[in-house]
């Protein structure tokens, strides 16, 4: 048997050294640990459908240049932090000036805070389920550390714009850590975009810890170009009565993967995970979610919708794990899928693992096509086929789009969706 391949040494060689020592140490340690990690193949269960799309060629190993010009000024209203190829651009940021809210680039942390953070990084993510999140820990050159003191409430959403400038080939490793104190509240928007047309890899990791009663809304928009592979992970740990709301919107690419892992660790914690993915052409998108019901009396509600056109491929793998002590858990998972062409493929796998005996747990997965009767009904009123297809496809995801609590993200999403409809449903 051919030995499993591992990451080349070039991939394990981090760039930029301008981080506090404890974080440099962590990075080196993770790099060493990764040297023997076999890369996922199609025999790796949770990479079954995606391993062949992941192309970690040598040209991607080097970090994308972080100096040089930042992209065009972004017209982002309100608070925002800009990552350029994985490194924060301080002059492009606008931060809140509110007591109890501290937002700092990793590079600016003092050694004691950095040591504290180094202890916590990766603690929200299961290394086996999200192997490549560890690559980020071996490579990040900067990151954003957000701390909310107890009762602190950020008064408007904070946008994290992560732009990848792929004028040359290489990779970027944006990192985020959110520590939400007791009863604090935060809405955070992560937008992943790119410019340039050279092959690039974005390996982004975001972590959230929610103390008792904290409420965090996370919006994640993945919309990089056709030359960019994106392998991202989000880890969440929740204490009593905290609430985590997630809205993920993903547009396909050559390789797109998002692992979302939520641990409900104390009773009364609850989460809602919404996801919308659209793919076309030869694109690929893979969502892997894990909800760990560790404590009793926690609720989770998960709704993901995939739409695949052309020859594209979408994957949803949703795991709910109800631990033995997690009595009175309430877990709902729905995954509906829409195939817009005969060449498209969607693979969906709900995985329920239940060890408690007094729980409510429901899941449903469907795959279908646009309903011919509905199309006929619409066109029999003079509506064009293009418009009928668009209306029906939008109807499939509209509810989830409308639930995104940030208007500008809803607008951006709609604009991108309109482009998708425009190219998918060409006028006959």
């Amino acid at each position, binding site marked *: 048997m051919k030995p499993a391949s591992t990451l080349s040494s070039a991939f394990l060689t981090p760039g930029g050294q301008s981080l506090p020592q404890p974080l440099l140490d962590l990075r080196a340690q993770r790099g060493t640990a990764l040297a023997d990690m076999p890369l996922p193949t199609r025999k790796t269960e949770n990479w079954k459908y995606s391993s062949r799309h992941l192309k970690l060629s040598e040209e991607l190993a080097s970090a994308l240049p972080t100096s040089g010009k930042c992209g065009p000024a972004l017209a982002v209203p309100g608070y925002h932090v800009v990552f350029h190829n994985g490194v924060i651009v301080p002059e492009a940021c606008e931060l809140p000036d509110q007591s109890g809210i501290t937002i700092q680039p990793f590079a600016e942390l003092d050694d004691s805070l950095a040591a504290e953070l180094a202890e916590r990084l990766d603690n929200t993510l299961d290394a086996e389920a999200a192997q490549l999140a560890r690559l980020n820990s071996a490579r990040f050159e900067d990151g954003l550390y957000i701390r909310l003191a107890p009762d602190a409430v950020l008064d408007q959403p904070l946008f994290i714009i992560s732009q990848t400038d792929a004028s040359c080939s290489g990779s970027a490793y944006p990192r985020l850590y959110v520590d939400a104190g007791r009863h604090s509240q935060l809405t955070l928007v992560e937008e992943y975009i790119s410019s340039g047309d050279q092959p690039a890899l974005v390996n982004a990791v975001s972590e959230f810890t929610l103390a008792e009663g904290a409420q965090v809304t996370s919006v994640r928009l993945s919309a990089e170009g056709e030359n960019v592979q994106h392998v991202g992970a989000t880890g969440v740990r929740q204490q009593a009565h905290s609430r985590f709301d997630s809205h993920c919107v993903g547009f396909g690419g050559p390789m797109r993967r998002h692992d979302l892992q939520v641990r409900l660790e104390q009773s009364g914690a609850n989460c809602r995970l919404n996801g919308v993915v659209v793919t076309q052409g030869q694109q690929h998108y893979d969502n892997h979610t894990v909800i760990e019901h560790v404590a009793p009396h926690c609720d989770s509600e998960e709704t993901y919708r995939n739409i695949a056109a052309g020859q594209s491929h979408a994957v949803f793998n949703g795991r709910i794990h109800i631990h033995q002590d997690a009595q009175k858990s309430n877990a709902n998972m729905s995954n509906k899928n829409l195939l817009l062409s005969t060449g498209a493929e969607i693979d969906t796998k709900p995985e329920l693992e239940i060890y408690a005996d007094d729980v409510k747990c429901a899941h449903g997965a469907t795959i279908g096509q646009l309903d011919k009767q509905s199309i006929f009904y*619409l*066109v*029999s*009123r*003079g*509506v064009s086929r293009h418009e009928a297809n668009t*209306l029906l496809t939008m*109807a499939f995801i509209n509810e989830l789009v409308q639930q995104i609590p940030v208007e500008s993200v809803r607008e951006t999403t709609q604009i991108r969706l309109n482009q998708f409809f425009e190219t998918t449903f060409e006028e006959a």
Partner: protein
Amino acid sequence: MLSIKNLHASVEGKEILKGINLEINPGEVHAIMGPNGSGKSTLSQVLAGNEAYEVTSGEVLFNGENLLDKETEERAREGIFLAFQYPVEIPGVSNLQFLRTAVNAKRKHLGEPEMNAAEFMKLAREVSKQVDLNPDFLKRGVNEGFSGGEKKRNEIMQALLLQPKLAILDETDSGLDIDALKVASDGVNALRSADRAILMVTHYQRLLNHIVPDHVHVLAGGRIIKSGGRELALELEEKGYGWLGIKDEDDAPVAG
């Protein structure tokens, strides 16, 4: 206005229409009656352009042009309207959005300016009252959670909005109680005009008490076997389809 000549059509390889001939002039109201399975709904679907039905021979001219060559949406924009027997529920698409898209598609086709959201809302509210539908229906998904009667009234409302040249009503009376039948019929009667024709397809006679036809045709086995005036419907009511030597699969009385 509409001229059907020797029309044959089949669905899934089975021939349903076996040579239909029919002439409809502007201002006329025609009723096609027949037992279940006679081909009534097939005729409506073929005229509206449902691709599930294949026309195997024959010709249909609409205002002198070959109707069968035109796409479904084009037929609609040029004035064909089909009120469905079973209107489709489309959750997630609001009635208002759907109706405005339809009205504007037609206006654009006719070279008229499109209506903006406010103008359309005003018009739609007025028309919804005409068929006794609460304007709140406009905000809901197309036919989503509507009762049978509400769906049928929504169909008539669409006809009133789109002002077709030929309105085809497929079993518009089925599933309606007496009051709803009255409202729907009033809506249809409001459509009657010298330059518009109406083709009603029905199993029962009762609709014809409210919308009085100029011509009645009996369809059986995919052919029109008898045509006459209003009195033909009354005669059918009295004697049943058996009178014409037709077996009604339902064995139901013709009067509703």
